[in-house]
């Protein structure tokens, strides 16, 4: 699930934002979750903090910072704040730059590397797929490119979540206007059928590309069996892990991916000081983490 920008959030007074406590909270969240709020988006963080300040009956950001750092229940409070920060529904085709990078650079690269070996099969994993917007987007993207780019290839998408309710909703594939706001009329007609007056349901063709499964990313026994993935998408899931667990999940992801495979995180998330085996790769409008093939000679760090 991507961080949503809640429309109803009012911009707090500029003076308020100058409170250094907000920057401290921002940096703390970045260290713990890898989610980074730029100075320009600090008002958003401030408004999320305001909600938690009301709930905890604190009056100043500094006092609330104490709640996050000194009080006995600081871990629980931090979790509640992170929940506020990542709240918000997501929608299909949310990250066009990501799909552009897949289409113009990543897939041609992977197809060229794999095609020569005779495996004409792609495996994608939406890890933490929430209510399914991401895997359905990927499924539509693959089908739309099946004639040219992916001609002769088969593909499957694994979509997993820990939350049974989210997973059930994802399997049902029923979406309203919000989730479909960026989906063109042509794609809606092609890949969805009417469900009720206001909602559409994914067609069986679309669903058939996706395998839904409950996966706990912390469960080593399950993680080690996931092999040969070309692409992993894991948006705003890492916030739920402490640094040690995050490192472990990254080790698994690294092993799950084929050499040359890519990992995508949420748009404000980073692996800085979490994992240094993945290479940060910039694409227009998006970033990704790349697993270099064995013996890759390009120096990561000089």
């Amino acid at each position: 699930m991507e961080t949503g920008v809640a429309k109803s959030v009012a911009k707090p007074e500029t003076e308020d934002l100058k409170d250094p406590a907000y920057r401290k909270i921002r940096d703390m969240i970045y260290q713990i979750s890898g989610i980074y709020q730029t100075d320009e988006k600090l008002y958003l963080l401030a408004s999320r903090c305001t909600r938690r300040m009301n709930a905890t009956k604190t009056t100043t950001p500094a006092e609330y910072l104490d709640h996050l750092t000194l009080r006995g229940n600081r871990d629980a409070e931090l979790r509640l704040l992170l929940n506020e920060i990542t709240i918000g529904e997501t929608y299909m085709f949310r990250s066009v730059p990501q799909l552009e990078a897949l289409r113009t650079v990543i897939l041609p690269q992977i197809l060229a590397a794999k095609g020569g070996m005779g495996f004409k099969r792609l495996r994608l994993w939406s890890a933490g797929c929430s209510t399914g917007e991401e895997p359905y987007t990927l499924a539509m993207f693959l089908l739309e490119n099946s004639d040219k780019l992916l001609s002769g290839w088969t593909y499957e998408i694994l979509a997993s979540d820990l939350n049974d309710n989210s997973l059930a909703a994802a399997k049902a594939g029923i979406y309203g206007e919000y989730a479909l706001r960026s989906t063109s009329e042509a794609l809606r007609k092609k890949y969805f059928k009417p469900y009720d007056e206001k909602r559409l349901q994914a067609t069986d063709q679309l669903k058939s590309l996706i395998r839904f499964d409950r996966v706990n990313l912390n469960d080593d026994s399950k993680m080690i069996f996931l092999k040969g993935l070309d692409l992993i998408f894991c948006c705003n899931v890492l916030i739920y892990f402490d640094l040690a667990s995050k490192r472990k999940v990254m080790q698994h992801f690294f092993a799950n991916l084929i050499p040359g495979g890519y990992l995508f995180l949420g748009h404000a998330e980073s692996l800085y000081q979490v994992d240094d085996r993945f290479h940060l790769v910039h694409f227009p409008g998006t970033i990704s983490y790349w697993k270099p093939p064995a013996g890759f000679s390009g120096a990561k760090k000089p």
Partner: protein
Amino acid sequence: MTTLEEIRPRIKALESMPTIPATIQPLLDMLRLPAEEVSIEKVVELVSYDSTIAAQCLRMANSPLFGRRNMETVRNAIMALGIKRIEAIVMGCCLNRIVPPEKWVLDPVVFWRHSLGCALVSSKMAKLIGYPDPEKAYLAGLLHDLGILVNMIACTDEFRQCLQKAHDERVALHIIEDQFLGFNHCQSGKILAEQWKFSPDLTAVIEFHHNPNPAPVAAPLVATVYLSDLLCRLRDLDHGYYEAMGIDLTAERAWATLAEQHPALANMDLARLTMDIDGSMEDITSVVDAVFKPHRAAAS
């Protein structure tokens, strides 16, 4: 490799290369004096003669990009920005004026978003890695694409086709220029930079910002602008289109060149820098729109 002498005849109308507007020259001369000889009074006076430059100084000083203050007078704005930043603003205005409105085949808003973005990223990166003169990095970032202006003026139609082809093929502009014109904006920019007697460092940035491996002069500065230019082209501060590329900046040779002299680069949080660029996008857009939108409206 084409030599400059082979290129020169190919740039049509090179004899009529643009000159620095006469009204701006005295101000530039003053700003480039040694620090102790610069008279702030004189700078304020000269800036005030030119309403565009004065307005831009005020706008920049009051912009969130510069810490959002409440500067109401040109004098306060100049004091806050500092002489180096004023020079960058004056150069920007100067470049904007040398291109006749009908020759802006690349939308000026797109050009200045990229240039201002590159200036900000260059100076930010310079500060992060301890490069001694971040303001120089700012100016270098702002002016690195000087040659694009030269090409728009000197070979407008050919350049328009290059831009279209680069856009359609999602390829970097300088590659198409090489194929199509036989030279690119690095080389044509160098010619104007020399004519305008830019410092050797600045000229090196303009000449080598697409081929910094390593630059013979000012290698760290060139590498900084090279990496910043790449980052901008990858972050919606591009030349108006997505290039089909994925780049591991740390594997670039320029990265190693820069890290040799500035080891702090190895510990720089690149993802965070990238997110900061995304965060300042709105401010860059608003500054550029405020300054250049009227120009475009007048041109169209």
